[in-house]
């Protein structure tokens, strides 16, 4: 028997959800519609000149080889950030779950980095890795004799922003993984060890399948994070450089729209970005979710 509250009034439920609807409409739908409208217009920032130009903005975008390159960089960047942060988050969670002493303290320490804003994380990593004033980069160059220079070499720069973005997200993933592991019945694992399964086998055949709903959720969240929220990291660390090597889509939207005041180009890029993220999420739900085992 499922207990249900029954509203006798027909208007009350609507009234109750009204605040949420108002917030969603003003802060999500209204700007989104504005963005869609701007993306088919060519207009000056002050609104004096506005012209409807059909899909010119999109044609300009997709005939620009550099924009296609930016899409490629974004996909590489997001996949790397998600892979690094999920695998490390999972690894640390497994270890922390087995820790015997000071469990609570260890966990809390591991959650901390999540409280750091992406921009701050970028600055912190820059203080370590900047070729001119970074402490670690000094060590890399003088002790390891590697020509580490993210200001000049694109590959160094992309490596640096992936590290800075993934670092923060490891904590987030850690929280979910550890919570997921706590929910796995101890008896299952104990039974497996009695049967002689190695720790790795226990992880692979029991923990991981039971963790798959968490893993799926975390993957979706990580990809969305790396598409949008990593803006702060890019902005503080590389500003899309050198030579456009770290110019991910969301940063290009900001540069063209907010700094460059080209609203049409910027809006059409946001529309592309939105479409891309919708496609990725739908694909994930359609194909990956089928493999996820939810326990009732």
């Amino acid at each position, binding site marked *: 028997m499922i207990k249900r509250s029954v509203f006798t009034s027909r208007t009350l439920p609507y009234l109750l959800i009204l605040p949420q609807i108002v917030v969603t409409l003003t802060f999500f739908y209204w700007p989104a519609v504005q963005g869609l409208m701007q993306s088919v217009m*060519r*207009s*000056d*920032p*002050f*609104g*004096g*000149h506005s*012209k409807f130009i059909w899909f010119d903005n999109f044609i*300009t975008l997709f005939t620009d080889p*550099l924009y296609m390159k930016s899409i490629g960089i974004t996909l590489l960047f997001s996949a790397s950030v998600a892979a690094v942060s999920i695998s490390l988050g999972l690894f640390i969670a497994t270890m922390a779950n087995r820790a015997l002493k000071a469990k609570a303290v260890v966990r809390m320490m591991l959650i901390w980095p999540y409280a750091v804003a992406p921009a701050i994380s970028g600055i912190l990593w820059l203080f370590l890795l*900047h*070729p*001119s*004033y970074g402490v670690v980069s000094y060590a890399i160059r003088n002790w390891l004799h590697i020509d580490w220079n993210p*200001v*000049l*070499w*694109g590959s160094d720069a992309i490596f640096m922003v992936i590290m800075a973005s993934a670092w923060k997200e490891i904590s987030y993933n850690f929280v979910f993984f550890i919570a997921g592991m706590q929910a796995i019945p101890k008896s299952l694992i104990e039974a497996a060890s009695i049967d002689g399964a190695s720790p790795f086998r226990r992880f692979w055949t029991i923990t991981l399948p039971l963790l798959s709903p968490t893993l799926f959720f975390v993957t979706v969240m990580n990809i969305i994070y790396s598409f949008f929220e990593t803006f702060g990291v890019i902005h503080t660390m590389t*500003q*899309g*450089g*050198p*030579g*456009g090597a770290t110019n991910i889509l969301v940063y290009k939207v900001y*540069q*063209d729209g*907010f*700094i*460059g*005041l*080209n609203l049409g*180009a910027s809006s059409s890029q946001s529309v592309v970005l939105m479409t891309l993220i919708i496609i990725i999420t739908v694909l994930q739900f359609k194909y990956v979710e089928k493999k996820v085992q939810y326990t009732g």
Partner: protein
Amino acid sequence: MKVRKIVVLCAVAVAVIFLSGQVMAEPVTINWWHAMKGARGKVVDTMIKAFNDSQSEYVVVGTYKGNYDETVNAGVAAYRARKQPHILQSFEVGTQTMMLSGAIYPVYKLMKDEGYNIDWKGYLQPVLSYYMNANGDLMSMPFNSSTPVMYYNVDLFKKAGLPMLDKETPITWDELGEITAKLLKSGVPGGMVTGWQSWTQVENYSAIHNIPFASKANGYEGLDCELLINNPKVVNHIAMLKDWFDDKRFVYGGQKYQGPKAEFIAQNVGVYIDSLSAIAKLKAGVKDFKWDVAPLPVESWMKNPQNSIIGGASLWVFKGHDKKDYKGVAAFLKHLSKPEMQIYWHKQTGYFPITLAAYEQLKKEGYYDEQPYQEVGVKQLTRRDPTIISRGLRLGYFIQIRNIINEELELVWNGKKTPQEAMDSAAARSNKQLREFEKTYQ
């Protein structure tokens, strides 16, 4: 008939009493949105206070709106919502967008309408010319202006057996090549660095050597201009820097100033090209060596180098306020250009005094004998009257164009493109932006 006349007279009398009462009771508020924070913000507040204390009709309220981008965006949003401030500070690269916005009240017109007969000849011409239209009318009031100069490490120069540089006559680029080679030989890890590479190595290089940056008089005379930076002279300069880069006479420290400045302070290089505003930063940051300032180098074939060009921001007046407000705006702009205000501004921030009167007075006071650093920029900027090529740049989507140039230069430094390829590509990509901008205003 008579009754009606009396009624009208009474109404007028009431109106007059009412209105004058209002004026007496409440001064007119003038809003100024700016991007000056920290020490500069305090200097701005002091200048505003001096104005507010000097009269009782107007009260200027200065509001810090964030950095340049944020301030301009705040202005754009406010104008769209019809809540624009009277005065908005906007950076030099946004000049074209502001000019064409249809939202501004040109400063020359405002001053004329309000009865101020200003002799614009009494201002530093290369500063004014950046903000003039093609007819030579001033569109916005220059506020904070600087220009790039060359800093060098005196101790490292002495160690390498190099003579000190003159503060007025520039050295040639060839000489700088020899100097940086000697620095390397004496054990310094790098030769020179530059902040803001597009501004110092392409924009200012073109102005000083009187090379057109863009067609149509650098864009002053039409939106249908095209970039000309892939000319042999600029390409040669970039090629020379690339050669220097390969043997470490030139070190790349990033697009902005933080990296290059850090290299100079760490004594990894002996020469550092950056804006005048770095004087204050070096004074605060350098503890263990002596440094000095010299004008930017010039090519040996350029016998009479032109003025360098400015960077910084100017004050734009928005349309759509009451006539009585504009009287106050004009009075305030006039106040800002008074010699004492300009002297105070220059001394506190290092930005140029924009009037000749202020400059002369500073000279008379002996300020430049005490602070010889400060005069290098003024002299470099005023050494010759600006030509139509060295007066400034007027490009749409200039921010995007600067980004493109920076990106392409980086591809030269890391060896992905030759200087010619990079400059051709920079020009082609920028021209696309210019065409897009042109279409917007058709």
